């Protein structure tokens, strides 16, 4: 099957795409990253890295970003898995569930942040409900920078609501790609529903899980608008710092340094997922 020579035609057809990617993605990316290694006069220097590491908010940005990722990814993965299984079980109204789950996909990140701000703010929805039910006497300040626990909780809730659908869609596609034979074989062996999930679904879903995790983690490193809307200047993440250094402080070198850190972390996590979730040939179908 692979023995046939393909000739130059496929490569020629790929050329326009490669050229487009090179001009509009690769070149600007290389130049932008190069900014991180230059100083204001254009010579090579690591001064912007010094500035970045020495900045008081770098540590906060790094810790908050990593904390959010460590908390959000497992939560979202578990939720997405449950949602995907519900849809795949082809229950009544499963088509409706798909639409409901997909609603957050249509909303921009900042809009989602503003919605959840309206829910969590002192005079917002959540406090009003809790007060009317009698759980609270006075409104509770959830978005309190002095109480990072609650702040992170609010951000995780908003992000989970907003971005779980992305993972769910990938998992649904993966689930639908598992041949029925495996499930029938499991039935023959008398497997319970939970055993089917653990022994058939999850292993067969590995390629999809790998893709979903990599994608979601890379996007999570770039999360910015939700954090801005909910936390304001109470906490910060790496991408917010990159934005601040470019737009407020007008230092493109340090902003590029922050962007490089995000890139490095994204690459590191991608490699981590590729190593932890190796996919075997037969699972690729």
């Amino acid at each position, binding site marked *: 099957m692979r023995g046939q020579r393909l000739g130059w035609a496929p490569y020629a057809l790929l050329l326009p795409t490669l050229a487009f990617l090179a001009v509009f993605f690769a070149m600007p990316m290389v130049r932008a990253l190069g900014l991180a290694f230059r100083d204001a006069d254009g010579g090579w220097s690591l001064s912007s890295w010094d500035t970045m590491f020495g900045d008081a908010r770098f540590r906060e940005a790094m810790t908050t970003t990593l904390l959010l990722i460590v908390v959000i990814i497992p939560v979202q993965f578990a939720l997405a898995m449950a949602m995907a299984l519900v849809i795949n079980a082809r229950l009544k109204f499963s088509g409706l569930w798909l639409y409901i789950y997909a609603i957050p996909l249509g909303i921009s990140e900042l809009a989602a942040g503003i919605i959840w701000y309206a829910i969590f*703010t002192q*005079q917002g929805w959540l406090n009003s409900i809790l007060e009317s039910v009698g759980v609270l006497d006075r409104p509770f300040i959830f978005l309190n920078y*002095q109480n990072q626990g609650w702040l992170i909780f609010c951000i995780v809730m908003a992000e989970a609501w907003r971005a779980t659908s992305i993972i769910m869609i990938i998992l649904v596609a993966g689930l639908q790609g598992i041949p029925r034979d495996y499930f029938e074989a499991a039935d023959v062996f008398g497997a319970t529903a939970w055993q089917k999930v653990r022994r058939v679904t999850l292993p067969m879903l590995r390629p999809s899980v790998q893709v979903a995790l990599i994608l979601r983690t890379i996007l999570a490193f770039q999360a910015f608008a939700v954090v*801005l809307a909910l936390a*304001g*200047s*109470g906490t910060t993440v790496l991408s917010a710092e990159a934005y601040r250094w470019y737009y407020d402080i*007008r230092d493109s070198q340090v902003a590029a340094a922050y962007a490089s850190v995000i890139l490095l972390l994204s690459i590191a996590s991608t490699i981590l997922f590729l190593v932890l979730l190796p996919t075997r040939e037969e699972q690729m179908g």
Partner: protein
Amino acid sequence: MGTRNTGVLRLLPISRRGVIKAGAGAAAFGGLGLRGASMQVSAQDGGEVVFLSTQLGQVTEAEAMRSTILADFEGEVEFITEDLGPFNDRIAAEAQAGSGSVSLIGGQHGDFASFAADGLLMDLSDLATELQDRNFPEQYLELARYGGESLAFIPWMQATYVMAANRSALQYLPEGVDEAALQTSLTYEQLSQWIMAINEAEGPKFGLPVGEMGLYHRFLQGYAYPSFTGGLNTTFTSDAAVGMWQWLQDAWQYANPQSVNYDNLSDPLLTGEISVGWDHTARLINALRENPDNLIAFPAPRGPEGLGFLPVVAGLAIPNTSPNPEGARALIEYLTRPEVQAVTLQQVAFFPVVEGELPEDLGAGVQAEVAAVQATTSDPAALQSLLPVGLGEQGGAYNDVFKATFRAIVLDGSDDIPGVLAEQAVNLQAVLDTAGAACWTPDPASDGVCQVGSGGAATPVS
């Protein structure tokens, strides 16, 4: 005096004499019949003018601009708003390319500094002479020269910062302070007592715009520092400054911690999350308009050195690459007409820079702000600052030092205020050195780069 809005609305009490002169000028002024006054720049068809602005970017403001303020201009204006970053990039790119699409640019005086330094703006001195009868404040025209000969912009509008409060909070005012006293004699000390009383009864309800886009750095630069220390850079580490930060740290206990989310105080005032706050007039106007019966506006408090306050000047400039300079000049002439300035005030709460009589029907919200601003500028203890001059691209970095100091002392609650100040003084000096900026009001003028110090004998930071 009641609520009649006659007279010149000036934000620069250059001296008592200046105020009296301005008053005399107002008395000699006619009524609103200025449309008939002779103007050498005639209102001919301006053609198509692309007007790029960093000001009036909020949706409601931009709408008001397009549908109301620009409505009577003879010509077609495309009003585009941008944040400062993209604004700078676009103008710089058009200058580099040698030809552009933007005919007129509008921004704060600090926004034009780097363009003026690079010679990218047309000299508008002749236009200023033609528009002499507008009587722009001389100090603003001086600002517009950026220390050189050429006039980089024509003043467009101005704004300042005031305090706002909910009437329900007035019951907690300290002894000896009533609503009338708020307009004339509130001190920082009394403000502390007030918000402490509110806190005991209702919880922390003081607000400052400490959000990412909030203007709390202007509070520090133009209000807190001058009122407590009489200076800014030159008194950055002074004992009076330590006292000011101590006051702020203490007051913060009575501030709503959600202040770090507030970019403007209109929404929190309307929802009741705060009952007393300080913010820009344009960021308070929504609240004052929507709830005029329950919200009041009054001047910022006074400190030991006086009532520090900060007017913000916005101007109109024409880039060298402007494709329609005649249309741009016509638009400048239009926007600086007294009646258009009055409409601007009524619509977006930015104050006029020209002499003229204010109309009666400004609306309750704007009326309240006008009263508060007039109370500020006519106060005998008023101590006017200017926005930083000569910082160019370093403007953001300069503000960032103040934000970092605020974060360390107030948000993180440091016990070593002098230590933090000494540390940040080094950063502040570095910014001033990079920008090569001389001192500006409230600091005394300096030869050469402004030196950050502790007031009194100017000991440079090592």
